[in-house]
């Protein structure tokens, strides 16, 4: 019998082949847990190589036995497992939970949004974490926030009027808002000059008042003046498009220090990633399509899973993550995010009969006939329509019987029976 080893390194050498085999079979997380627990046990109590081998073997078979068997209707199970808790959600439809000053769509409306793969969520939100330099200092965080927040002239002006006597637009700036958004009067002046509406002048007695002398032709209408005023109102001073509001929040991070991060109303992943001071590795948005565009389909899949899980968790519903993973997998299997429904998974099924069963039966059948489509009757719906056994569970098992073998074993039974009789 081999002796106990208390050194993990030694044991590792002994069972190297087995560990490598397990690494190939097990998911990373489980493998790492196995390794760390083996190490801990070895160092605390000692472990013989053969014992370690048996443990690994047991873990391997336990893992194998825990997987779903081929033939299991996982899609149906997933649908029911999400659908049933979903009925509990309906009672609390359109419930909004505030993250401080924010409203976030949660519950069933948000879930429908995800499954429908909408272009834009109804409440797009980004979580922007900052880099080493900016994350521990509130003022530096504020600096980044100001860089991100989309600021227009109307955000910092207390009033913008048209002076008809002098034919000019009067912009009165709000000092509080200027301070809050971190904008200087000169900046605003430059922006207004860029509009090319006319010469921009500062009031000699009041530096917060700006005049835009309009250059107009002989004839002009009031409508035209209004249009120019609109232009001034919407002129961008700085920031990133679509980010309407930025709020600074703090949390205690793993190191036990207070870290500041930004939460934004509106989402624009592509441009936020380029902002200095932002930690691009930790930026998060709830807009799945943006993630797909910028980071690719795998990231979109991960985001879908996370968002769906978050919605269910928030409602206190315990749905196994594997059901959600299946839904996300189906949605992203083609390389782009498809919705579950007419313009996605259901409407793009390869079988014409399945599509006809989904909606617009006659139109779908006519269209399929015109295109000369072939139905291989492999799916569930098609099989039911054609009156065949469905290819799920017992129905997908193919059994063959060997007649020659039957004869052989029958002779065996006869011999046994006669032998028993004697």
């Amino acid at each position, binding site marked *: 019998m081999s002796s106990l080893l208390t050194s993990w390194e030694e044991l590792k050498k002994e069972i190297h082949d087995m560990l490598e085999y397990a690494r190939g079979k097990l998911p990373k997380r489980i493998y790492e847990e196995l390794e760390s627990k083996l190490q801990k046990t070895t160092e605390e109590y000692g472990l013989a190589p053969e014992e370690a081998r048996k443990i690994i073997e*047991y873990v391997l078979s336990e893992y194998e036995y825990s997987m779903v068997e081929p033939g299991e209707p996982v899609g149906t199970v997933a649908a029911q497992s999400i659908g049933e808790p979903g009925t509990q959600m309906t009672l609390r439809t359109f419930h909004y939970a505030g993250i401080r000053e924010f409203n976030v769509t949660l519950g069933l409306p948000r879930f429908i949004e995800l499954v429908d793969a909408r272009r834009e969520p109804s409440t797009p939100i980004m979580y922007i974490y900052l880099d080493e330099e900016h994350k521990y200092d509130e003022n530096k965080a504020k600096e980044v926030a100001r860089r991100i927040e989309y600021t227009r002239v109307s955000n910092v002006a207390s009033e913008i009027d048209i002076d008809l006597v002098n034919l000019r637009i009067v912009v009165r700036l709000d000092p509080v808002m200027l301070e809050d958004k971190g904008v200087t009067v000169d900046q605003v002046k430059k922006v207004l000059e860029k509009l090319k509406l006319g010469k921009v002048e500062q009031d000699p007695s009041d530096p917060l008042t700006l005049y835009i002398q309009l250059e107009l032709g002989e004839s002009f209408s009031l409508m035209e003046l209004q249009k120019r005023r609109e232009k001034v109102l919407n002129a961008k001073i700085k920031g990133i498009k679509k980010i309407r509001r930025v709020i600074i929040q703090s949390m205690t991070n793993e190191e036990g220090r207070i870290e500041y991060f930004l939460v934004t109303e509106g989402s624009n992943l592509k441009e936020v990633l380029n902002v200095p001071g932002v930690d691009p590795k930790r930026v998060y948005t709830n807009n799945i399509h943006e993630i797909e565009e910028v980071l690719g389909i795998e990231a979109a899949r991960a985001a879908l899973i996370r968002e769906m899980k978050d919605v269910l968790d928030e409602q206190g519903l315990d749905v196994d993550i594997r059901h959600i993973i299946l839904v996300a997998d189906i949605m992203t299997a083609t390389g782009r995010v498809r919705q579950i429904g007419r313009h996605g998974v259901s409407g793009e099924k390869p079988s014409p009969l399945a599509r006809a069963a989904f909606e617009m039966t006659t139109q779908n059948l006519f269209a399929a006939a015109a295109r000369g489509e072939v139905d291989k009757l492999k799916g569930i719906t098609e099989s039911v329509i054609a009156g065949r056994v469905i290819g799920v569970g017992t129905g*997908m098992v193919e059994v063959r019987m060997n007649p020659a073998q039957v004869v052989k*074993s029958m002779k065996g039974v006869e011999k046994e029976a006669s032998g028993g009789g004697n």
Partner: protein
Amino acid sequence: MFRTSSIFSLGKDLGAGAPSMGEELSIEELKKKIEIGPPWLTRFERARVIGARALQISMGAPVLIDTSSLPKHVREDPVLLAKAELEAEALPMTIVRYTRGGKVQPIPLKWLLILDKLRPH
């Protein structure tokens, strides 16, 4: 000293119940031979085999095991007979497993039954 009786005996031969396929295979070898699906009889396969066999028996097919020692209620029920046949590894059947990619592997029912008996639950 810490030796416990393991459920998985590596490298042991299969004893008296080994397949009459002309070759004696160890459990590990057998496991490796099964390329598609899990190395045991899935519950769907079990149900399908018992169902198919029970239908044959109910229509008069000869039973492939010695029934004289079986209790009366088993002898009179085709499903229970089929079950008994399956457990006795008397069914000369092959399970054809396939993947969506088109790979096909016919697996002797006996192999799956032998491996199935190793399952802890």
